[in-house]
């Protein structure tokens, strides 16, 4: 146990209708610990979760703040519905900060028990500001009403060791381990910009600490830059009424109905309880959506080697509850137990690997040309314990591998690492370098936006090619879906607040497979409705998967099956049952719109958030190279004929690629116009004062920012 540097006692606030109405501020630089009031204004305009995070963050920073400025904050909040136990997916913690990768606010969310336990310890939100000189552990005991800050130098850095040790220490007994949750990163987070946060929960059946990640945007890098080694919260006594809801009977009724649906239908639908999100690997492959070798193609015959059945039969421990918060009967948080590591500092040891989730199998698998489940799980483990966002890592390494194969970078630049597609050994060594802070790994950890500049300026790479194939937007790496044939999803990735991440909009099937949104107006509406609807989960502390990874048996009969109307109504009813308010489905969207537009204006305030920042790399929109075009020649030729009235038979390959590009880039611009209009923004992507007024966000602080861009 390290030396106690500061310790205070507090009286945990009673939760009233989902809110403790208090937030906790900790400055790790001067060790100030303060309590703040959560105001009615905050609840009205920002609801909670990501809304509270962004509000506090705005007030903490200036336009000059950079990710490593002491005033940058990590803010986390679970939201008013967070911590209820009767409905699936109610334990998400939302985390915001100014991102090292993008320079604008990032929001990322994680399962695990931290957020709910934090709220039940009396805190709707937690702000972490300042920078310590030495590593710290922050501990919040919600039963005792105790906050302590102690030296943390002696603890290991990697999460699988650190979280296990801290859980054991602060629990005090095996039985109490489930009452402790740890937030930590890992040894690589000090060396890379894509460091992530692990949120733990104890799994009493496996007798080990499990972790879920707030992975995107470099939050772990900030945690370690602040010299915070870990946050620990302890709260014992979880019951279904801790939120002191207005109408617990309604929550019970909706919860039981939903659990029954899960019991009756999951096996017939997505099998989330059996395999989790990785169920989709072969589906994606079938529809040419599985990103392969840096998003060049949408699948590979070898994908069968990383099919769900391979993981189920050879690696995952099945048949057990695997939720990352109580009451989640979707239970998609799968794990491989007794997994023997073959490389790195823990080679030879048997560990539990959380996953693989779909993003992991696609990112660390097909997108790197690696079709080896052992290698995928080993990379998965090391990304987690080292504190590396595996999506940014995978997409960055995919970019590096393509640069390497196209001889834009050479062995002398990579320190001899033969970073060809498929070389799992090289990828694992890159991860170990990130942990050690050595070699090419540290450079790779900068992420694609900075690497493009380094490769061009220092290694003489072709800037145009790198702009085209580097799958980043706003500085954030794309998540793992090939989407060249879905214009709506191109917008779903690029026309986002934080950068290209599928949690704002996932429209590929609706757009490309089911053709439910054929016109620009349809797509624009989808890129209005879904990002707003999905934002709402982040305001309330909810997981999105229970919304549409299972649907009622008669969902197909509804007017809008893609929206899953019955589940939307569940959320409206649960919100009202917890908070005692009377929102409807329109007000739900409006609640999100307020925060979504706030975040957009926040981006503009930080020097981003305009049309030029929403530009997509051409690899996102269409075939960059001759090989890409030729691999799907029949499709692209047909499009030239049918969409442009051209005759591919009389065109050279270069002409066909150029004509395809011109058409697709134009389509993207037209889509952008339509989406901005639908969202109430100018042609440059700026929310208009009229729109801000209409949604009740004509706050002077926002108007001051947008008026400079009208």
């Amino acid at each position: 146990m390290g030396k106690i540097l500061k310790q205070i006692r507090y009286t945990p606030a009673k939760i009233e209708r989902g809110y403790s109405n208090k937030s906790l501020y900790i400055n790790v630089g001067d060790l100030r610990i303060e309590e703040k009031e959560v105001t009615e204004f905050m609840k009205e305009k920002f609801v909670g979760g990501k809304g509270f995070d962004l509000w506090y963050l705005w007030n903490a920073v200036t336009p000059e703040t950079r990710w490593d400025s002491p005033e940058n904050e990590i803010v986390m909040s679970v939201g008013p519905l967070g911590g209820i136990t009767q409905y699936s997916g109610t334990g998400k913690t939302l985390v915001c900060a100014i991102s090292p990768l993008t320079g604008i606010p990032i929001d990322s969310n994680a399962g695990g028990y931290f957020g709910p336990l934090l709220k039940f310890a009396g805190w709707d939100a937690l702000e972490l500001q300042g920078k310590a000189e030495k590593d710290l552990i922050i501990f919040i005991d919600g039963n005792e009403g105790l906050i302590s800050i102690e030296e943390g130098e002696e603890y290991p850095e990697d999460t699988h060791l650190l979280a296990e040790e801290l859980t054991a220490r602060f629990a005090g007994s095996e039985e109490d381990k489930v009452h402790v949750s740890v937030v930590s990163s890992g040894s690589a987070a000090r060396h890379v910009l894509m460091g992530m946060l692990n949120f733990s929960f104890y799994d009493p059946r496996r007798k080990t600490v499990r972790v879920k990640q707030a992975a995107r945007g470099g939050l772990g890098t900030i945690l370690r830059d602040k010299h915070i080694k870990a946050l620990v919260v302890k709260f014992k006594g979880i019951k279904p009424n801790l939120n002191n809801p207005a109408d617990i009977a309604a929550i019970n009724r909706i919860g039981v109905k939903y659990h029954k649906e899960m019991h009756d239908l999951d096996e017939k639908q997505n099998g989330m309880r059996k395999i989790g999100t990785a169920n989709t690997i072969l589906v994606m492959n079938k529809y040419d959506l599985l990103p392969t070798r840096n998003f060049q193609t949408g699948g590979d015959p070898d994908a069968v080697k990383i099919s769900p059945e391979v993981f189920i039969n050879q690696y995952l421990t099945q048949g057990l509850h695997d939720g990352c918060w109580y009451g989640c009967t979707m239970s998609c948080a799968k794990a491989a137990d007794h997994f023997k590591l073959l490389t790195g500092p823990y080679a030879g040891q048997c560990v539990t690997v959380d996953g693989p989730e779909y993003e992991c199998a696609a990112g660390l698998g097909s997108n790197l040309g690696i079709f080896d489940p052992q290698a995928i799980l080993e990379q998965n483990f090391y990304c987690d314990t080292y504190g590396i966002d595996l999506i940014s890592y995978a997409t960055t390494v995919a970019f590096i591998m393509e640069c390497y194969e196209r001889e834009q970078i050479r062995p002398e630049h990579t320190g001899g690492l033969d970073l060809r597609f498929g070389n799992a050994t090289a990828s694992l060594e890159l991860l170990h370098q990130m942990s050690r802070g050595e070699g090419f790994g540290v450079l790779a950890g900068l992420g694609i936006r900075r690497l493009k500049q380094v490769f061009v300026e220092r290694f003489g790479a072709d800037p145009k090619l790198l702009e085209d194939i580097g799958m980043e937007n706003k500085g954030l790496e794309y998540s793992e879906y090939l989407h060249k044939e879905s214009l709506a999803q191109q917008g779903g990735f690029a026309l986002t607040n934080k950068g290209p991440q599928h949690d704002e909009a996932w429209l590929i099937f609706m757009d490309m497979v089911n053709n439910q949104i054929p016109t620009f107006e349809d797509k624009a509406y989808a890129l209005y409705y879904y990002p707003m609807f999905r934002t709402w989960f982040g305001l309330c502390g909810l997981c999105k998967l229970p919304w549409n990874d299972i649907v009622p048996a008669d969902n197909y009969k509804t007017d809008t099956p893609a929206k899953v109307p019955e589940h939307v109504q569940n959320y409206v009813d649960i919100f009202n049952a917890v908070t005692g308010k009377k929102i409807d489905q329109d007000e739900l969207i409006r609640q999100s719109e307020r925060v979504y537009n706030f975040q957009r204006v926040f981006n503009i305030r930080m020097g981003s958030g305009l049309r030029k920042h929403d530009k997509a790399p051409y690899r996102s929109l269409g075939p960059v190279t001759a090989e890409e075009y030729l691999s799907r020649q029949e499709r692209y030729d047909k499009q030239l004929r049918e969409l442009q009235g051209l005759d591919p038979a009389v065109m050279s390959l270069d002409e066909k690629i150029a004509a395809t590009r011109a058409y697709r880039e134009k389509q993207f611009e037209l889509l952008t116009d339509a989406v901005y209009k639908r969202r109430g923004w100018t042609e440059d992507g700026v929310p208009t004062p009229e729109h801000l007024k209409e949604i009740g966000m004509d706050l002077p602080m926002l108007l001051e920012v947008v008026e400079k861009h009208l």
Partner: protein
Amino acid sequence: MKVLAHKQEICTGCRECELACSQAFFKTDDRLKSAIRINNNFNTFHATMCTQCGECIDMCTAHAIYRDKNGVVRIDKKKCVGCLGCVGFCSELSMFYSDDQLVPFKCIACSICVKACPENALEILVSKA
């Protein structure tokens, strides 16, 4: 294993068992707080109660359900977080809840209803399984 069994052919549907159960566990004459429910289907009486199959044990998200030394499936009220997942997942529809209780409830084969049944239509079966 102990399990409550119901003889449909002699049950008259008087529902004394329900009252005995709710009185024993909740001190109330409220059939909605009974762990056995008698349903009238055209004057044939069907009983819904736990078969002690144990499917709920593995699915419990709080690891609060277990089988005791008599083979009876029990809920550890201290561990239970009241998620009601077991209610939705019970294939027999025999895990019950009440809005004024924080945890669900079920038949634990205690035999109170057996003694209360005027027709001897209920019995506790004991097997080694």
